[in-house]
């Protein structure tokens, strides 16, 4: 009976002790195996390590964009390590200031005033050169300073600056669609291929001791960020430089405000050069907000007379005319209730009389183009434009491509007069790239390719080559060959400033009026030229466009010479033999 009483007396105490001991053991197991570092609380340093972004190379492996190391000085104030006392904090800042201000050239205490309470880190100096970064790191160590460190980071640079700025785009720092902060491509190739270029950043939780010194990491935490892959462009930097030089010369001589030029291979759709002037420099962030766009892909314009190539292609393809078909060229005609006049109506008020189809292109007759549109009728005309890719994006691998605009047959606000005007390139807006791709069908035996700017992706998983893709057959090979010969005659007999010594080239001038909200600008024009060659085996297609030239408004006077100079310089660089030579066909 006494024994039983004793056991009963001890049981509650034993139960309570066992319970407490059990809870302690469970907590210890949890902390040891499941919540390592939890006790450290704010003494765990969270570091996001940015991956090195991949390079962008031109087709000859020249580096156009790369990440380079830079250094920053960062203040880190952790209340547990340094105490939450404002006086202690002020004393700490004074020590940092005394040690580093002579090296940094500014007061750390001044910089501290912009430190928001919500952040425990404040970068006080960026873009610190490596040698200075080493000196600062040594000073920090010698002075035994805590809460200030020199940290490396990756900076994106573009060695060629504005030469390829609109094509490459630029990189910004900020949250993505998932809210994850980091660097990401904002435009150009940087944006389209952001997934390949960006790699994988890692976030490390580094345990630190009470003094703020990092403790040894677990093996898993030592995994570094995965660097991004390289992107190889179809662009040729040297050709790009030649095109930029000649376009700049053309702009200067003509007094034009700005201009664009494009060089591509019609057989494959590879873009060899894409220049817009003036262009932004992705190295200078201040210039980005205003002009950070790629006008060759994003900006619409009315092409004017170069569009007659497409009207003629439609007419030849439909079989309603042949090169020798003649029509009566009058100075003005009525089309859908609106007058259509030739550009030289003052010189030839009654027109040029009987002209064949080649002469229609040579003398760039608006009345002739309208005549073809009338023969075709709206259904066949718009079907042909659609086949040539007008009205749809080219699906180039560059962001923000703008779709062409035109009122087509069947649209509620379409009028017959639109058909007449569109036949010679008015009342239709497209990008320079879309215009070039439509004409490329003539150079490529009727096939339109998908234009592309990236030819190869190099990642840790391997090398992926981008193959040319046929978008569609726009016209027959026979029509393309016929039109090529006609466009060759245009250069040989009329647009002589586009002639290239040694090479048979084909092309067409364009002088477009500029639409405004109150009608067409009575003074300014867009002068352009689109051509390709050598005619016997077209290797390149070149489009030159100059906005508002002052010296002469005509494409034949301003854009054609630029086309000729570019062609004369780049064809030998591409190893294209002169026409008629044993190597040329």
């Amino acid at each position: 009976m006494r024994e039983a009483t004793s056991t009963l007396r001890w049981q509650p105490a034993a139960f309570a002790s066992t319970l407490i001991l059990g809870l302690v053991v469970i907590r210890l197991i949890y902390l040891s195996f499941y919540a390592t570092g939890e006790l450290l609380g704010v003494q765990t340093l969270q570091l996001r390590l940015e991956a090195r972004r991949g390079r962008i190379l031109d087709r000859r492996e020249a580096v156009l964009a790369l990440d380079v190391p830079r250094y920053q000085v960062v203040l880190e104030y952790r209340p547990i390590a340094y105490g939450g006392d404002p006086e202690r904090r002020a004393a700490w800042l004074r020590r940092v200031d005394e040690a580093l201000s002579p090296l940094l050239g500014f007061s750390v205490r001044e910089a501290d005033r912009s430190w928001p309470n919500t952040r425990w880190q404040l970068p006080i100096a960026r873009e610190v050169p490596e040698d200075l970064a080493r000196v600062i790191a040594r000073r920090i160590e010698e002075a035994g300073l805590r809460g200030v460190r020199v940290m490396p980071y990756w900076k994106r640079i573009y060695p060629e600056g504005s030469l390829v700025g609109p094509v490459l785009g630029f990189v910004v720092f900020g949250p993505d669609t998932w809210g994850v902060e980091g660097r990401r491509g904002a435009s150009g190739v940087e944006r389209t291929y952001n997934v390949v270029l960006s790699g994988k950043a890692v976030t490390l939780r580094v345990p630190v001791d009470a003094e703020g010194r990092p403790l040894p990491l677990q093996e898993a935490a030592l995994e570094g960020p995965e660097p991004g892959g390289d992107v190889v462009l179809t662009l040729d930097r040297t050709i790009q430089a030649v095109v930029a030089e000649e376009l700049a010369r053309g702009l200067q001589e003509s007094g034009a405000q700005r201009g664009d030029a494009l060089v591509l291979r019609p057989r494959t759709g590879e873009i060899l050069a894409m220049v817009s002037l003036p262009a932004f420099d992705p190295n200078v962030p201040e210039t980005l907000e205003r002009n950070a766009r790629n006008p060759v892909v994003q900006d619409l314009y009315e092409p004017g007379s170069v569009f007659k190539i497409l009207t003629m292609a439609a007419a030849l393809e439909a079989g309603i005319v042949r090169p020798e078909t003649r029509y009566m060229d009058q100075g003005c005609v009525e089309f859908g209730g609106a007058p259509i006049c030739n550009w030289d109506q003052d010189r030839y008020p009654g027109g040029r009389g009987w002209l064949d189809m080649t002469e229609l292109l040579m003398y760039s007759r608006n009345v002739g183009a309208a005549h073809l549109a009338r023969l075709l009728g709206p259904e066949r005309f718009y079907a042909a434009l659609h086949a040539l890719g007008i009205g749809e994006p080219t699906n180039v691998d560059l962001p923000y491509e703008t779709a062409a605009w035109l009122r087509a047959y069947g649209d509620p606000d379409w009028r017959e007069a639109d058909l007449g005007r569109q036949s010679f390139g008015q009342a239709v807006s497209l990008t320079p790239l879309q215009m070039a791709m439509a004409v490329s069908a003539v150079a490529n035996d009727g096939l339109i390719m998908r234009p592309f700017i990236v030819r190869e992706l190099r990642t840790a998983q391997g090398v992926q080559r981008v193959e040319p893709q046929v978008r569609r057959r726009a016209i027959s090979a026979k029509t393309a060959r016929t039109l090529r010969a006609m466009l060759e005659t245009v250069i040989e007999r009329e647009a002589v400033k586009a002639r290239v010594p040694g090479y048979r080239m084909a092309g067409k001038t364009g002088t477009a009026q500029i639409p405004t909200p109150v009608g067409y600008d009575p003074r300014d024009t867009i002068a352009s030229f689109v051509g390709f060659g050598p005619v016997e085996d077209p290797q390149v297609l070149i489009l030159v466009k100059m906005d508002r030239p002052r010296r002469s408004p005509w494409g034949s006077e301003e854009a054609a010479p630029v086309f000729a100079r570019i062609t004369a310089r780049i064809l030998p660089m591409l190893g294209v033999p002169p026409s008629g030579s044993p190597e040329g066909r």
Partner: protein
Amino acid sequence: MLLAMVGGILFIAALSLLFTLLSTAAVEQGQIVQQLAEVRAALERENAAMEEIIARESTIPRLLERARALGFISGEGTPALPLSLPAPLPTPGMQP
């Protein structure tokens, strides 16, 4: 009984010693790996810095500058030599 207790204590002491030795070795190895990772990161940064120098020295303006310094002259204005002469030029006309 005493022998068993001594044996038990010795066993626990040996285990503790082994645990301590292994822990110390793991920490040392961890530190070495961490140092190596830091060295590797530093080397990668040095490599990238050298790539930057090469890229800057290889830009078109820099290459032109060096070519001029070596005595090369620009080919601008020097006409290409066609292997077949074109037909006589017509009178230049004007076209839009």
